[in-house]
């Protein structure tokens, strides 16, 4: 266990040499253990990355991937274990040490200055100077050269504030390259990208290894890992399960290693139902917080017993659509009707009374009060209703009993209804929200990113629950950035881009390429729907 590199690891890795001129390890972590209070995030993890390979680190949410990378990059200090960089024992006291050793990290959240140009951002803190002044021309030239060499399409002179998330990521990668990184760590890089952008990113990663550089790639998307990596290390519950060459693995094996059992994301079986229209949205326009148009002429309807999916890269109007439908944002034009009641005329409380249940996308901020108990969280929205309240006075006995029942019914892992929500895992917090919203007796369920940040076991339970609600005749609008989730659950999938519905695809014909093109803003003629 304490042995640095299991001999099988070395052996397997050796079978899969790609573009590596030098046999050597870019990174070797040995027996890394990291505890947060009583929680063990990493438990004796070994990770050996050969120079010149694309090494995927894969695992469920909470498996310890990000913690491990933060330790490698010097953002966290391990409680136990040692780190070797380029075959040299190194104490990575802070990121400066890691950068000096040739490591570079592209985080999930970008840190760019929106008012500066691309080149200025790339060279921020290490500007090229000439006579004491910043040499913009040289910075632009150098940025352009690097971008072209690695296929990172970006104009160095543009202002970052005007660019999309995908391009921002390229800038982050350029920043890392300029600082001399030979080993590049990417934390869930594809989470913010369209499928096409992801493919371009993979091309870039391949061009890195072609030049003898090394890539460590964190993900929980199986397809990507299968497509792009040479070697996979699987983490589960903070422990390393295995390190294997990708070519030897099937997707099923990989899932089994990640979860410890087989999980299917196949389409859920269903009875076709033709219910009445519950939600009707016509020519809806709305603005975002910056007063820019976020919804442009959205038309849709949801019938009872139907799951309508909304696909799209995050930030293309899905949040605003959910907010308008729940009364948290006003529309600038158009109508939304819930069972023939015009939502524009109703307050959030009245919309709930009219039959809305809402599982919000921003669960930690909108969905719960983290510091309050489970019971108090489950009371929200029904604090004026019997039996929880009579004559304005709360009955905490009834509230607690109801909460305990929901904890049991929805299999929430908690000690009791008095537990603070912040003590629960992401999946269980989401179940608290679902339990509250699905037992409201509402006819329309607005469900936004139900499984984001939730482990696979809980994902399945949440999907089961959504299908049960469908069978019970509820009308469901399911917003998700995960296509496999929509393909598994939705009867119809609408694709949003830049505030518009680009088109509609039947759930049983969900085709990743076609949806991906629409997500990227390309209208696919035979699927585009025009407003009636």
């Amino acid at each position, binding site marked *: 266990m304490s042995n640095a590199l299991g001999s099988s690891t070395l052996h397997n890795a050796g079978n899969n040499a790609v573009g590596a001129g030098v046999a050597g390890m870019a990174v070797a972590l040995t027996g890394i253990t990291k505890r947060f209070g009583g929680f063990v995030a990493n438990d004796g993890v070994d990770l050996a990355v050969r120079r010149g390979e694309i090494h995927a680190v894969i695992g469920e949410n909470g498996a310890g991937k990000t913690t491990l990378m933060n330790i490698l990059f010097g953002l966290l200090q391990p409680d136990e274990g040692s780190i070797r960089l380029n075959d040299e024992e190194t104490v990575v006291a802070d990121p400066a040490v890691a950068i000096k050793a040739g490591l570079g990290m592209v985080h999930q959240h970008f840190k760019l200055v929106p008012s500066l140009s691309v080149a200025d951002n790339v060279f921020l803190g290490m500007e090229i100077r000439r006579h004491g002044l910043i040499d913009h021309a040289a910075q632009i030239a150098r940025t352009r050269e690097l971008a072209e060499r690695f296929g990172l399409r970006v104009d160095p002179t543009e202002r970052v504030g005007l660019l999309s998330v995908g391009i921002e990521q390229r800038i982050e990668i350029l920043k890392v390259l300029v600082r001399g990184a030979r080993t590049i760590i990417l934390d869930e890089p594809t989470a913010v990208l369209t499928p096409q952008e992801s493919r371009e990113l993979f091309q870039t990663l391949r061009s890195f290894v072609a030049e003898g550089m090394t890539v460590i790639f964190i993900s929980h998307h199986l397809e990507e890992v299968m497509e792009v990596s040479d070697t996979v290390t699987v983490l589960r519950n903070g422990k390393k399960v295995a390190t294997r060459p990708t070519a030897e693995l099937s997707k099923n094996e990989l899932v089994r290693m990640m979860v410890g059992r087989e999980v299917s994301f196949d389409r859920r079986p269903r009875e076709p139902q033709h219910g009445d229209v519950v939600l009707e949205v016509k020519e809806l326009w709305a603005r975002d917080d910056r007063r820019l148009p976020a919804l442009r002429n959205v038309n849709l309807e949801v019938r009872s017993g139907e799951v309508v999916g909304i696909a799209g890269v995050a930030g293309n109007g899905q949040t605003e659509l959910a907010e308008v439908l729940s009364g948290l944002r006003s529309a600038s034009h158009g109508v939304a009707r819930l069972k023939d009641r015009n939502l524009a005329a109703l*307050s*959030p409380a009245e*919309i709930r009374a009219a039959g809305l249940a809402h599982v919000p996308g921003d669960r930690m901020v*909108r969905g*719960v*009060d983290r510091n*309050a*108990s489970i019971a108090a969280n489950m009371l929200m929205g029904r604090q004026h209703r019997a039996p929880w309240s009579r004559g304005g006075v709360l009955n905490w006995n009834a509230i607690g009993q109801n909460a305990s029942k929901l904890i049991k019914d929805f299999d929430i892992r908690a000690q009791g209804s008095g*537990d603070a929500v912040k003590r629960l895992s*992401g999946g269980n917090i989401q179940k608290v929200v679902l339990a509250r919203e699905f037992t409201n007796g509402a006819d329309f369920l607005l469900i936004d990113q139900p499984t984001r940040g939730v482990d696979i076991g809980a994902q399945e339970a949440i999907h089961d629950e959504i299908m049960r609600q469908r069978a019970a005749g509820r009308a469901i609008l399911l917003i998700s950035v995960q296509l496999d989730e929509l393909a598994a659950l939705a009867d119809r999938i609408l694709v949003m881009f830049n505030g518009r519905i680009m088109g509609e695809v039947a759930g049983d014909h969900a085709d990743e390429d076609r949806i991906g093109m629409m997500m990227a803003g390309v209208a696919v003629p035979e699927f585009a729907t025009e407003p009636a």
Partner: protein
Amino acid sequence: MMNDRLRAVSGQIIAVAVALIMGAIIILMVGESPVRVFMTLLRGAFGDQAKIAGTLLQTTPILICGVAACVGLRGGMFNVGIEGQLFLGGFAAAWVGFAFPLPAGIHMLAALALAVVAGAAWVAIPAYFRARYNTNEVVSTILSNYVAVLLTSYFTIFLFKRPGGWSETPPILPTAYLPGIFDFSRLNWGLVIGLVLAIGAALVFRYTSWGYGVTMVGSAPKFAEYGGVNVKWQGFVVLLLSGAVGGLAGGVETLGVHHRFMEGFAPGFGFDGLIAALLANGSPVATIFTALFFGALRNGSLLLEVDTGASREIITVIQALIILSVSAQALVRRRGDSQAGERRWKF
């Protein structure tokens, strides 16, 4: 849950202890013995019956102002204008007391009622701007203090001045007095009003539907909004109630202690109440104890200059140190929290 509360309480106690130790160092620096100063404070606060009654007398306005602050904090509103509401409430009660003869009892209630209305009306301006235009209530309520203090001075000196050299209104009629509790002290039923308010506020927040909504507005406003609570309206209501209680504190002080309104009649009680509420983490019941602590400091300090070489300003220093260490603690805790939060989000 219990564990959380225990941790919060022990955190506050440690913060106070740290402040007292730093205070001790400062006392050493001015050449006094910290032990002697603290013993004198203790003796001055609790030395005999009269001193205890004096401490409770000081505690009363701090407690009521503390409850006022708690009401605001619960709904996420930081009412820093309690001092001003107290002044207006005090003046309003005095005005009813000397200008409108009424039967005993009714007279007192009418005076207190106008104090409540005055406090609420005074905070209504910042509260309206907060609800309508989202202006920061901290700034607007702080500024309203100066206006309130000077406005009541103007009323006192130019409109209702009592003949003679003092800047004070004529005395109120005995029919408007808040009855005393003991013969040997000016301690009065205001203390009971404070205790009832503190416990009542705690019960309302815990056991009513309205209190639940307000609590959620304070602790998780986006969640409350999502759940159908009218966040802006509740914020307005809570500020108004907070101001009303602040006004009542002034009325109690006028009717129970001074029996007239004087310029600068109750310096700093509003701010002490706010500090007591913060030290109590916004819990009205815990504010009873923190208000007692600050009341004891105030009353004990009267003996300081008599018996020791330290100035009574040392208690102001200690209070400032308490504010610093309590807020430092909050920062440390928040940092730990946010790390934990990010971690949880990832896992």
